[in-house]
C-alpha cells in the first residue's frame, strides 16, 4: 500500500537545497516569526522557532503575536570546546540570547530567546568562534556524540576525533548555510548543486550517531540511530561494534510508536567506519517512511522490514559482511563527579550542572563563574550527554585555583548533592519548547527537593538513582532509560515509568499514567521503603524493582498497518 509523501517532503524538495524563503522571512518586519515551511528548513541550519508559551495568552489579548524567538544549537561533535570558544559562546548568550547557555542531552550548547532580527548576527558570531550550527537539527545526521569519560584520556581523544570526522563526513553539501548566514557567495544556479549523500529531500527524519567507550555508556549508545561501541585492547582501537535502530520518541496513547534500543549487528574496523555510517544512512534514506513522520526514524524501518533484512541490505551495499560483534560491558550511564586524573596525567573536573542550564541565578552565578574559569583555563571544556560539564586537561598546579573559582561561584554542588540530584536529567520543555505538555527543567528543582525528602526518610540520600524528567513523550532527556522517569502529559501531570537499569541497556516500564505530583510521590513512597530494606549490596533501584517483580509487564507493540514501499 503506498501513501503520498508528507508535506515536509515536498517542502524539502522545493527548497533549493534548504534555502526556501528563509532570507525573505528574516527580512519581514511585520512578524517576529518566519513562515511555517521555512521554519522547517531553518532546523537544518541549526535553529528552531519557538515562542514564550507563558506569554501566549497574555499577548493574544494584547493584540500582539506570540513572543517569537529562536533556539540555536551548535554542532559540537564530541562536545569539546576551547576556553576561547567558551568565552565566545558566553558573550553570545549575554548579547544576543537570554543570558544563558544550555548544555543539551546531546553534548552541545543551545542558546534560547534569540529574536529574529538577531538570528543572522548570532549565527555569524557562533561561526566566528569556528563552530557552526549546520545540521544541528533537521532531517540529517545531527551532531555526533561521544563518551566524555575523563579516565581514559587517550581513548576519549580518539573517540572525539572520530565523532568530529563522522560529523564532517556526513554534513550536507549545500552552500545555503554560507549564503544565508555568512554572506557567502551566492550560488548562481542551485540546479548545479547536489547532495551526493542525502539527495534533494535529505533523510526521512533526524538521525543520531553516538560513540561510547566501555565501560561508560554516558551517551546512551542504544538510544542512537547508529550506536558505535569502541573496542579497545591494550590502548589500541580495534574498531567498533555497530548498534542500529535506537530511538526514544513515542506518542502518548499510540501503541504503534515506542522507544527502542539499538540492536548490535556486528563490528567494523576503524578504516571502514565512515563507509559504514554512510551506508547505514543511505539505507535509511531509501527505505525510511516519508509519508508518516512519526514512523520515519530508522527504528521503525528496522521494525517494519526486520533486522535481518536491514543487515542484509546494509552488507549488500557495503559489499562485505560485518564481522561478529566483540564482547563489551557497560557499568554505568552516569557521570563521575569531581577530580579525576586521566591516563595522560592531566586532571579533569566534572561539575554537575542542573538540567544543563548555565546561568547567573541568585546565589548561583554559574555563567560568571565559568567565564572566570575560561579566562584562566589552559585545557579544554567537555560537555557530557548527562548535561554536565568537564573542565578537562588541567595541570596539577592549577587545580587549587579552579577549585577556588568553582567554590566561589557555587559550582561545587557535586560535593554535597544527593544521589538522585547528581543523576537527574531534564529537557527544556516550558516555556520555549513547542512540544512540551508539562514542565520539565523548571519543575526539576521542585520535584527533586520532594523526592530528596522522601529518600532521606529511608536513608537513601546517597543512593545513586537515575531520574529523567521530560515535558513530552519525544524523549530529549531519554526518559525511557531512567530508573525513575516522569513523562509529561498535561500541566502538572505525568506518566510514571520505572525500572530501567543504570547503564542504558534496559528500558523502563509504564507504572502509572497521567498522575499528579501527590500521586507520584505516594506511588514511589512504598517502593523507596522496600528498596531501602530489601536491596542487595550495590543493587540499583531499577534492578531491584524488576527483581522484586514490582513492575507490570510491558504492553505489546503494534506495528502500523501501513508500510511504505
Amino acid at each position, binding site marked *: 500500500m503506498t501513501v503520498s509523501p508528507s508535506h515536509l517532503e515536498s517542502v524539502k524538495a522545493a527548497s533549493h537545497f534548504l534555502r526556501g524563503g528563509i532570507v525573505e522571512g528574516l527580512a519581514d518586519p*511585520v512578524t517576529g516569526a518566519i513562515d511555517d515551511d521555512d521554519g522547517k528548513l531553518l532546523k537544518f541550519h541549526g535553529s528552531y522557532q519557538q515562542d514564550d508559551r507563558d*506569554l501566549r495568552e497574555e499577548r493574544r489579548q494584547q*493584540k*500582539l503575536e506570540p513572543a517569537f524567538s529562536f533556539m540555536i544549537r551548535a554542532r559540537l561533535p564530541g562536545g569539546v570546546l576551547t576556553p576561547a570558544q567558551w568565552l565566545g559562546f558566553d558573550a553570545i548568550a549575554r548579547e544576543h540570547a537570554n543570558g544563558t547557555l544550555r548544555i543539551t542531552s546531546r553534548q552541545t550548547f543551545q542558546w534560547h530567546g534569540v529574536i529574529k532580527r538577531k538570528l543572522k*548576527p548570532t549565527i555569524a558570531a557562533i561561526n566566528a568562534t569556528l563552530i557552526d550550527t549546520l545540521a544541528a537539527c533537521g532531517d540529517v545526521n545531527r551532531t555526533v556524540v561521544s563518551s566524555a569519560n575523563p579516565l581514559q584520556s587517550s581513548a576519549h581523544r580518539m573517540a572525539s576525533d572520530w565523532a568530529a570526522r563522522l560529523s564532517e563526513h556526513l554534513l550536507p553539501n549545500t552552500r545555503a548555510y554560507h549564503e544565508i548566514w555568512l554572506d557567502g557567495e551566492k550560488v548562481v544556479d542551485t540546479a548545479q548543486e547536489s547532495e551526493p549523500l542525502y539527495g534533494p529531500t535529505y533523510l526521512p527524519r533526524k538521525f543520531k550517531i553516538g560513540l561510547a567507550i566501555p565501560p561508560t555508556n554516558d551517551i546512551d549508545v542504544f538510544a542512537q540511530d547508529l550506536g558505535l561501541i569502541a573496542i579497545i585492547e591494550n590502548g589500541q582501537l580495534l574498531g567498533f561494534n555497530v548498534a542500529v535502530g535506537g530511538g526514544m520518541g513515542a506518542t502518548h496513547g499510540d501503541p504503534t510508536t515506542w522507544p527502542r534500543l539499538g540492536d548490535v549487528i556486528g563490528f567494523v574496523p576503524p578504516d571502514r567506519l565512515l563507509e559504514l555510517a554512510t551506508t547505514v544512512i543511505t539505507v535509511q534514506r531509501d527505505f525510511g517512511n516519508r509519508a508518516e513522520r512519526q514512523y520515519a526514524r530508522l527504528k521503525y524501518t528496522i521494525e517494519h522490514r526486520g533486522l535481518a533484512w536491514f543487515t542484509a541490505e546494509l552488507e549488500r551495499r557495503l559489499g562485505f559482511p560485518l564481522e561478529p560483534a566483540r564482547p563489551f560491558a557497560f557499568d554505568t550511564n552516569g557521570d563521575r563527579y569531581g577530580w579525576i586524573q586521566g591516563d595522560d596525567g592531566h586532571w579533569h573536573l566534572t561539575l554537575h550542572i542542573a538540567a544543563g542550564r548555565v546561568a547567573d541565578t541568585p546565589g548561583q552565578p554559574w555563567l560568571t563563574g565559568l567565564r572566570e574559569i575560561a579566562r584562566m583555563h589552559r585545557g579544554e571544556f567537555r560537555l557530557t550527554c548527562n548535561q554536565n560539564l568537564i573542565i578537562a586537561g588541567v595541570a596539577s598546579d592549577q587545580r587549587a585555583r579552579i577549585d577556588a573559582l568553582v567554590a566561589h561561584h557555587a559550582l561545587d554542588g557535586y560535593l554535597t548533592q544527593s544521589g538522585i540530584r547528581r543523576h537527574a536529567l531534564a529537557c527544556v520543555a516550558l516555556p520555549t519548547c513547542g512540544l512540551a505538555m508539562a514542565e520539565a527543567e523548571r519543575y526539576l528543582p521542585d520535584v527533586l527537593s520532594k523526592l530528596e525528602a522522601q529518600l532521606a526518610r529511608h536513608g537513601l540520600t546517597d543512593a545513586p538513582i537515575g531520574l529523567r524528567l521530560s515535558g513530552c513523550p519525544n524523549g530529549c532527556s531519554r526518559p525511557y532509560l531512567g530508573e525513575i522517569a516522569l513523562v509529561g502529559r498535561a500541566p502538572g501531570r505525568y506518566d510514571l515509568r520505572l525500572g530501567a537499569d543504570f547503564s542504558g541497556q534496559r528500558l523502563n516500564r509504564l507504572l502509572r499514567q497521567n498522575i499528579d505530583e501527590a500521586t507520584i510521590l505516594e506511588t514511589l513512597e512504598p517502593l523507596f521503603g522496600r528498596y531501602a530494606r530489601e536491596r542487595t549490596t550495590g543493587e540499583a533501584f531499577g534492578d531491584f524493582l524488576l527483581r522484586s517483580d514490582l513492575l507490570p509487564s510491558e504492553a505489546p507493540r503494534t506495528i502500523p498497518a501501513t508500510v511504505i514501499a
Partner: protein
Amino acid sequence: MPALPAPSFAPLPGDASADILRLLEGLDAPTLWWVSGYAAALAHSAGPPRTVALLPQRDAGAQERVTIIYGSQTGNARRVAERLAQAVERAGLAVRLIRADAYPQRELKTERLLYIVISTQGEGDPPDDARGLVDFIAGKRAPTLPDLKFAVLGLGDSSYPLFCAIGRRLDARLVELGAQRMVAAGEADVDVETIAEPWIDAALAQARDALTTALPRANVTPLHPHAAPAEWSRENPFAAELLVNQRITARDSSRAVHHFELSLEGSGLTYEPGDALGVWPTNASALVDSVIQALRLDGDEPVACAGETHSVRTWLGSRRELTKLSRPFIAAHAARSRADDLNRLLAPDRSTDLAGLLASHQVIDLLHAFPAAWTAGELVAALRPLAPRLYSIASSRKAVGDEVHLTVADIGWDAFGISHAGAASSFLASRGDGARVPVFVEPNERFRVPADGSTDVIMIGPGTGVAPFRGFVQERRETAARGRNWLLFGNRHSQSDFLYQTEWQAALRDGSLHRLDLAFSRDEAIAQIPRTRKTYVQDRLRENGRSLFEWLDNGAHLYVCGDATRMAKDVHAALVDVFSTHGGLDGESAEARLSDLIQQGRYARDVY
C-alpha cells in the same frame, strides 16, 4: 462631502438660486444645518413673504452681516465660533459662519465686521484648516482694511511656550492693515470657556452696536440628519459603559498603551472614522487627597464658585485641573509663596524655562516645592476648570456597531519623589469593565476617509497616532473600498510596542491593508548592524519616496496623526524631500505642492 445634484430651486426667481448656491458654497455641515433651521423658522412665522438678510445683495451683505471665521484643529475653536454665531443670530443679526479654508480670501477687503476664532498648535503653528488664510493675511498680498472692524479670539494651551501665538499674530496684523479692533484679543487656555464666554459677550455687544440694519427676527428650528438627534454634548456627556480595558503593549514595554471599547448603545451618538471622542476624567482620589493634605484643607468643606457649591473634594476631583498647570495659577501661587525663583520664571524672557516647568510639574509639585497658604475657596477660584480630553477614535461603526474604541497611552512618570499620571489616561486605565465614562463626540470633518472609495490612502501614524487608521482600515474594509491602504507605523520596540500587530497582520492577509512600513526606533541598536541611528517613520517615507510620490501623483490622500511637536514636523520635512527628490521640485515648490494638497483636503493632519 459628496456633490449633490444641481438644484432647480423651483419656487425661486432666476438669480436667487444662484445666490443661494454661492452662499452655501464652502459651508460646513453644522452651518448648513443651522441655515436650514433658520429657514424653517422663517417659514413657520406667519406673514407675507419678505426679503430676508440671509439672501442679501452681494455688496450690501458685507455691511449688514457678521462674518465669523474659525480655524480649528481639535474642534474647540469651531465650537466657540458656533456659539458666537448662535448668540449673534439670537440677537437678530445676520451672520456667516465659515471654516478658514472655505473662506474666499478675495472677500476680505469687503468685510465690515469680522470675528476670527483660531487655535494655535504645537509650537506656534496654525491649525491645518487655517494655514492658507493665515499666510494670506500675514503675507504681502493682504489688502489694506480701513473699513474693517474685527476681533480675534485665540485658543491655545498655556503649557506650551508660544501660547495663542497665531491669535496674537492675526490680531496685530489686522491692526497693521488698518482694521479697527473692537474687542481686545482673547487668549483662551485649555479651559476655553473661562476666556471665551466673556469674549463672546463683548463681541456680541460690539456686533449689536456696529450693525445698524435691523433684521427680521427668526428663531432657529433644530433640524438634524437623523431622526433622533444626539442630546449628548460636551456639556452634557453620555455615560458610556466601558466594555474592554486592555493593555496592548507587552509587559516589558516601557509604555502602557491601552485599548478601550466603550458602548454608545442607546445614546444616539454617532461618529465617523477620524472623529475624536471627548472624555471627561475624574482626578485620582489619591491626588485630590494629597492636594488637600498639602494645604491642610478640609475635604468636606463646601465651596461656592461660579454659582455652584460643592465640597472641596468634589471641586478638585471633577471640576478642576490638577494635572496641568497654567501660567495664571503659577503667577497666583508665586505671589502667595513669595518664591523668587518662581516669580522670576514669569518674566517675558524666561518663556522657555516656564514651558519646562509647565511640562514637568503638576499642581501638587508646585505646592510641595513652594509652600504657600491657600483657602479652599481661593484655590478653587484660581485653578483652571477641568477640561475634557480628546482622543482620536480607533474604530468604524460599520465594523463595531454601537461601540467606540480608543487607543490611549497611560502617561505616567516619577518625579520629585512621587508618581505622576495624566488625568484622563490614568482615569481610563484604572476603570474596570462596566464602569461608566462620560463622553461626547467631537467631529473632525477634515480627517475623513476619501468619499471616493477608489482613492488610495497613505496613513502615517506612529505611536498612538495609529488610532484613527484602525478606524480607517475598518471603514474601508466594510465599505469594500477599492483604493489601496498604506500604513506607516513606528514605535520603540517591535516585540513590545507594535500596537494592534495581530490586526494589521490579519488586514494584510485579507487584503484590507496593502502595505505596512514599520520603524521601531529602539530595535535597530544591534552592535553588529552598522546602522546605529534610530529609525522613525519619516525615514521610511524617504526610503520609499518613489512609491510615495507615485501614490500621491495617482491621487492618494495622505493622513498624519500623532505628535505635533516633532513627528508631524519631521514627516512634513520628509514629504518636502520626497517631492524635491522624486518630483524635481525645489524646496519652495515642494512646499507649495503640499499646501495645495492641504487645500484640496488630500493632506490632513490630526496632531496634538
